[in-house]
């Protein structure tokens, strides 16, 4: 498609023709011997399974290919690098692939391997998840490159997580479109008509540029779309021919469009006014936030709104929305007392106000019940309503909302705060203050209950998740720490007990709940934190790490310091409970097969020595730690290692949840 210019032919074709001819000759030489022998009257001697290489085979396997003539002119991929550089993309995590070899070469040689710097990854899903984690700290997107077919299939789960978590990632897949000229064999297996179709259901936008000018427009447009709330991943199919061909020496040089950020969408002014009226007149307004704070400023705005109303805030944790130390911070159960609920960028409004119990009720499909009072008014501000697609069901169950707004919550908050201030009548101000006093009392009592619960099993072996989390906190509390991932469910202790107050203290979760996010996303986030001088700590689950543990090597290779503390409960614990539940419903004893959990759900016998795995890839590592009393000193040692610039891992055997 992109090879309309009959100008200089790329010599790779001649080279590949030579290779093909050599291969054919080899095949003919190999085949001729048994055919000739079949014609002889005497039985042929037994042929060994591996014949010695013929001269042709030896030449094809070990010989140096003829040096291809240098392609004259400026490579198209050099121009592509010029385009990429205008956007200030700092890193490019990727697993190398021939379908993007031309832009790869331009990036590291012509581009000097700076802005972006290539980070060697061992799996495409790891590369995307690194970009995912990086954005949640830096607020700036990364791009990744992959084979358009096999690589993109590996990358797809990471892209789905980014889609569900509303995170921009620029994915560029190499693809050789021209069936008449692309190399046969592997490169053709790795080509497709429309690679973007694979991820179109969970990307915001995609394109297949057919000229360099088209690429420049597509890339800047992709960046702009990805960075307009609701954020999301975008996809560009990059033709191998377009990368490799030189720029044409006739006509005007392609221009690079200037990137100008698009202002985020705000909620309708009339709806904002109505929402303010409901909130100002409510007896017990409640704010629920999931991905409300896109930036640190979003947190400040939410505090301002909450204090204006003296309304309690339930932070569902998609982002760090609200300080956990604020007296208006409330647990999810607080929703039951509300008469007005404001939902900000909720990924699941239905489940916020209803509950589903996975029991044998309703013919085995489980039972639903409401969490709120009948007349509670519901308000929603969500940008995701602007970007809903049909196939994947991340839009969740349908919930009727009284005042729904399609708009970005953070961008709408300033107008809502002003509207609320104007809507609060003077005679309500004393009652609102009194509400704040009640919230302070509820917060103090809740904190006390939480600490009492954490003390249960404090000295148990394996280590309780509460003990694990508080030992980790004690080791990092005096540093500018950032909890870059908390995977595998540790009963939410960090959010319940750590005094999280800064935006980078908590980064949220994967979005799509695709296991395998934690390890690479934490490395990506740690990369961003490294550049900001922060200390990164991750609570890393066992099952998550084993999806693509090669990211440990990437962290060591690129000197990304972080402390990874294993929550090693030796099982895919969510599934342990699912299979147990179904066994009970069917009145059968769960088959444990010699493990602790039902067959197929345990990660034991043999136990994985994660500390050795990490050590083999350049990490400082210790373990397994089964005695809680040994954890504190090991953590202090590990923190020093990380402060010296090396990643460190502690393999801790833990309670299940």
């Amino acid at each position, binding site marked *: 498609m992109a090879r309309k210019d009959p100008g200089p032919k790329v010599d790779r074709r001649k080279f590949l023709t030579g290779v093909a001819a050599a291969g054919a000759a080899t095949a003919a030489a190999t085949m001729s011997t048994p055919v000739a022998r079949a014609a002889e009257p005497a039985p042929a001697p037994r042929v060994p399974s591996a014949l010695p290489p013929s001269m042709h085979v030896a030449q094809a396997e070990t010989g140096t290919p003829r040096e291809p003539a240098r392609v004259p002119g400026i490579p198209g991929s050099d121009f592509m690098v010029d385009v990429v550089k205008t956007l200030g993309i700092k890193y490019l995590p990727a697993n190398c692939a021939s379908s993007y070899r031309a832009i790869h070469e331009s990036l590291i040689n012509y581009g000097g391997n700076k802005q972006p710097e290539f980070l060697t990854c061992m799996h495409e899903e790891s590369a995307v998840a690194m970009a995912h984690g990086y954005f949640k700290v830096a607020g700036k997107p990364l791009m990744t490159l992959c084979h358009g077919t096999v690589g993109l299939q590996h990358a797809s789960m990471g892209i789905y997580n980014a889609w569900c978590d509303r995170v921009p990632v620029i994915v560029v897949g190499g693809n050789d479109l021209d069936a008449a000229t692309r190399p046969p064999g592997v490169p053709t297996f790795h080509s497709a008509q429309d690679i973007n179709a694979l991820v179109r259901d969970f990307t915001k936008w995609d394109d297949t540029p057919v000229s360099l000018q088209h690429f420049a427009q597509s890339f800047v447009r992709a960046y702009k779309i990805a960075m307009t709330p609701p954020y999301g991943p975008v996809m560009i199919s990059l033709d191998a021919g377009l990368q490799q061909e030189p720029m044409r020496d006739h006509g005007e040089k392609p221009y690079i469009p200037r990137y100008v950020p698009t202002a985020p969408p705000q909620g309708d002014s009339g709806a904002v006014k109505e929402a303010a009226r409901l909130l100002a007149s409510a007896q017990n307004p409640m704010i629920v936030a999931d991905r409300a704070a896109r930036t640190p400023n979003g947190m400040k705005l939410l505090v301002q709104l909450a204090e204006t109303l003296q309304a309690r805030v339930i932070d569902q944790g998609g982002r760090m929305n609200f300080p956990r130390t604020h007296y208006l911070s409330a647990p999810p159960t607080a929703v039951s007392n509300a008469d007005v609920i404001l939902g900000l960028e909720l990924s699941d409004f239905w489940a916020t106000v209803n509950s589903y119990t996975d029991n044998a009720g309703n013919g085995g499909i489980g039972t639903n019940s409401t969490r709120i009072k009948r007349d509670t008014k519901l308000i929603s501000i969500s940008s995701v309503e602007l970007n809903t697609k049909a196939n994947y069901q991340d839009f969740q169950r349908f919930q009727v909302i009284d005042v729904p707004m399609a708009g970005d919550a953070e961008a709408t908050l300033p107008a809502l705060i002003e509207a609320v201030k104007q809507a609060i009548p003077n005679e309500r101000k004393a009652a609102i203050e009194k509400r704040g006093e009640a919230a302070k009392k509820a917060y103090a009592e809740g904190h006390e209950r939480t*600490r009492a619960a954490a003390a249960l099993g404090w000295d148990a072996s394996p280590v309780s998740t509460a003990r694990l989390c508080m030992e980790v906190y004690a080791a990092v509390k005096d540093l500018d720490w950032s909890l870059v991932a908390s995977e595998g469910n540790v009963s939410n202790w960090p959010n319940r007990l750590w005094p999280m107050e800064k935006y980078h203290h908590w980064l949220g979760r994967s979005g799509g709940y695709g296991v395998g996010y934690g390890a690479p996303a934490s490395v990506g986030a740690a990369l961003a934190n490294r550049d900001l001088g922060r200390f990164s700590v991750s609570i890393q689950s066992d099952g998550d790490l084993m999806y693509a543990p090669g990211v440990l090597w990437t962290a060591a290779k690129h000197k990304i310091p972080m402390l990874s503390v294993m929550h090693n409960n030796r099982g895919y614990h969510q599934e342990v409970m699912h299979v147990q539940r179904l066994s009970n419903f069917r009145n059968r004893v769960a088959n444990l097969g010699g493990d602790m959990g039902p067959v197929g759900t345990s990660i034991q016998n043999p136990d994985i020595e994660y500390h050795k795995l990490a050590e083999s890839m350049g990490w400082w590592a210790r373990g397994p730690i089964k005695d809680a009393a040994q954890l504190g000193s090991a953590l202090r040692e590990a923190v020093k290692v990380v402060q010296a610039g090396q990643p460190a891992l502690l393999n801790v055997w833990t309670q*299940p949840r």
Partner: protein
Amino acid sequence: MRGNRTRLTGYLLLVVTVTAAGLAFSRAAAAAGSPEKGKTAYVQHGCWQCHGFVGQGGVTGPKLAPDPMPLEALSAFVRNTRGGMPPYQRAILSDADLADIHAYLQSLPKARDYKSIPLLNQ
């Protein structure tokens, strides 16, 4: 779903069932409860999955120990629960095993006062 369902009927049914099942529970089995056997049964029957190895509880299940509920109440709940926890019928968890599990939970020491734990007072 809001406002369209009451759980009162379910609760009443559970209370009645709890009482009936408690009366039916073998007091002989309760008396024979063995903490050692109960520790094994606790793991084999998957109690640890949601409640932890020492019954400390977590987001997936409430605490069971220390100070477990009376055996009769535990039995009634385990046999008839309609909540998040799946029921264990006698075919998969015998009265004797349940009594052993209860004995194990009773044997677990009291938790430390959180105020005496420096890490919970940082």
